[in-house]
């Protein structure tokens, strides 16, 4: 009987000519599955895409929005890395009109000014676009900083364990003991208003949470057979960490990155709202909201407030929903609450 089986095997394994391997689902099919399974996540993705698209090109001049520079996301295409983004504060009705005569402040939304104008007569929509660039610029820089530093600390701390791990974790605990907002206000008040400093400060505050999640994942990853195999083969600690552990924790890192973006954008808006004098003064959603709070005249309607506040809410909502959905798809282990 056994002999017969063994003889029959090759016949079974030799596949008929019409057999093919199951095809990998196409990208479109994957996207469609994501849309069906995670409608809220899709909504969030759409919000993010709209926000990015808004910053990519100059809005049509005929709609009353001024000439925005052709610099998507704050850096020029073709430049090696994110060059520093400087707002060119050329707004129709802004500085120029202030010099010439009365300014059209607190105008109602119209085809000329999609969302009306603010206290200085600036077009609210174009300021929102500028502010979106600033938010994305700060968010990407801060998260890049936080992820690189947090990953390094988390991986090293979890890989070596022992007393160094305890020391690093207590240090991180003490950082986390600070209320984030107070620490941020303190750091940025030490320097001249500067976008890069702000991004680094926001990233610095985010390091603790990134490293905690990375450390948790590495603690289990380092016990995996393939890490053990690498060690048996004589791979050095550095090689094990960079080539064996790091590629295998990419999913949680991506998730942390996307969820962190929403948090950082929110923190930037909150900072600009509370201490507008300590942050760079080019358009920011936080500053716009602060201006409407300070000086909205009684006869003006509330939509000026809604415009600035709504931008913050939609951006944060978009990043959070997209991040949550990504987390469910990429790494369900991270799910909390």
């Amino acid at each position, binding site marked *: 009987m056994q002999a017969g089986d063994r003889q029959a095997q090759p016949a079974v394994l030799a596949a008929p000519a019409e057999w093919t391997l199951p095809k990998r689902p196409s990208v479109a099919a994957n996207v469609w599955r994501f849309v069906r399974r995670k409608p809220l996540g899709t909504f969030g993705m759409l919000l993010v895409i709209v926000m990015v698209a808004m910053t990519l090109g100059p809005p049509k001049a005929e709609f009353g929005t001024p000439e925005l520079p052709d610099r998507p996301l704050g850096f020029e295409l073709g430049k090696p890395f994110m060059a520093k983004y400087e707002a060119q504060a050329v707004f129709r009705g802004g500085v120029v009109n202030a010099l010439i005569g009365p300014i059209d402040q607190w105008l109602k939304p119209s085809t000329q000014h999609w969302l009306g104008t603010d206290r200085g007569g600036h077009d609210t929509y174009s300021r929102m676009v500028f502010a979106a660039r600033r938010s994305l610029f700060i968010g990407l820089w801060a998260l890049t900083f936080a992820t690189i530093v947090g990953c390094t600390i988390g991986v090293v701390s979890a890989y070596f364990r022992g007393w160094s791990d305890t020391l690093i974790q*207590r*240090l991180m*605990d*003490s*950082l*986390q*003991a*600070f*209320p*984030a*907002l*107070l*620490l941020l*206000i*303190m*750091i940025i*008040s*030490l*320097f001249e208003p500067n976008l890069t400093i702000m991004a680094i400060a926001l990233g610095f505050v985010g390091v603790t949470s990134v490293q905690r999640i990375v450390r948790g994942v590495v603690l289990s990853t380092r016990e995996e057979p393939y890490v053990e195999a690498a060690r048996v083969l004589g791979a050095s600690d550095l090689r094990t960490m960079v080539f064996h552990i790091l590629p295998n924790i990419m999913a949680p890192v991506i998730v942390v990155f996307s969820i962190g973006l929403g948090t950082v954008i*929110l923190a930037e*808006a*909150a900072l600009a*709202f*509370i*201490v507008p*004098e*300590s942050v760079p003064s080019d358009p920011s959603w936080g500053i716009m*909201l602060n201006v*409407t*709070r300070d000086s*909205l005249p*009684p006869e003006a309607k*509330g939509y000026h*407030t*809604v415009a600035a*506040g709504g931008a*913050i*809410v939609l951006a*944060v*909502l978009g990043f*959070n929903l997209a991040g949550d959905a990504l987390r469910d798809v990429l790494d369900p282990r991270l799910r909390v*609450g």
Partner: protein
Amino acid sequence: MQQYILRRSLLNLLAIFFVVTLIFLLLRIDTGHVVTMRAQQTQTASAEAEEAARQQVREDLGLDKPLLVQYRTYLWNLVHGDLGESFQAREDVISEIGDRIGPSLELGLLQIMVALVVAVPIGVISAIRQDTAIDYVLRFFAIALLGIPVFVLAVFVLTLSAQKFGYTAPYTDYKDLLPFPPFATEEGVGVWNNLQIMFMPAIIGGLGTGAIIMRFLRSQMLEVLRQDYVRTAWAKGLRERVIILRHSLKNAMIPVLTVVGLLLGIIVSGNVVLETIFFIPGIGLWIVNAIGEYDYPIVQGVVLVVAGVLVFINLLVDITYAWLDPRIRYG
């Protein structure tokens, strides 16, 4: 248990030491602003006189000494409870903090109260009626509240109440906000006045925190409701009330308590925002103003006190948790 408490306390002392060192180093990054501000207080005629004044200020503040010597003096003063005096008002920072911490504590406690009052019933209802219409509605509100940041909501509410209803909270000096005795008869003083100022920020801040607690409590309840002992309780024929409140909620609340401990950091940050928006004269508004004037003794003092209190509360939460659930200690 004693060993556990001792170990946690020592680790927390280490954490506080790191906090102190970090603040010291941060404030020494750039001392130029401070020196300039102080030097401008004395009237100077010429450039040399100005430079001399700056030099004088550096000597006064001990900034001309080596960093390690400064660090030693700083720690020495700190151990003796001396946080220095503020640059502008020239008042002792510690006693000023004592004066202003009252409204902040009140706002924080009110926020936690609102959060728990809202979150616990909603979390329980949402869990025991899982996947029904009421569950979806409640969860939708929780997500919506999570998505709207506190300061945006606060500005919306303020604008709406001022423009549509013409209502603004009365303004009070910080010494009148928490009067003693509480039921004063004067105009603009007393409990009623206090609550008029506090209710809007407390509700706005509390709802945001409550949404986080509600989501967490719901998932905890769902887990507890599937436990064997809950099924036993049902099988025994106990009333639903008893099963939900006494057998399930009590156990589900244990992890929630730790979350409340962790949320304190968020509540303190929220306090800073809310105090700034609603002009509540607590330490949050004070520190924001102090930062604008480069008044570093205040910044340093407030951050130290807040961080110290948070570390201490986290220690308490850890110990309570270990006491409620002995498995933690062996983990």
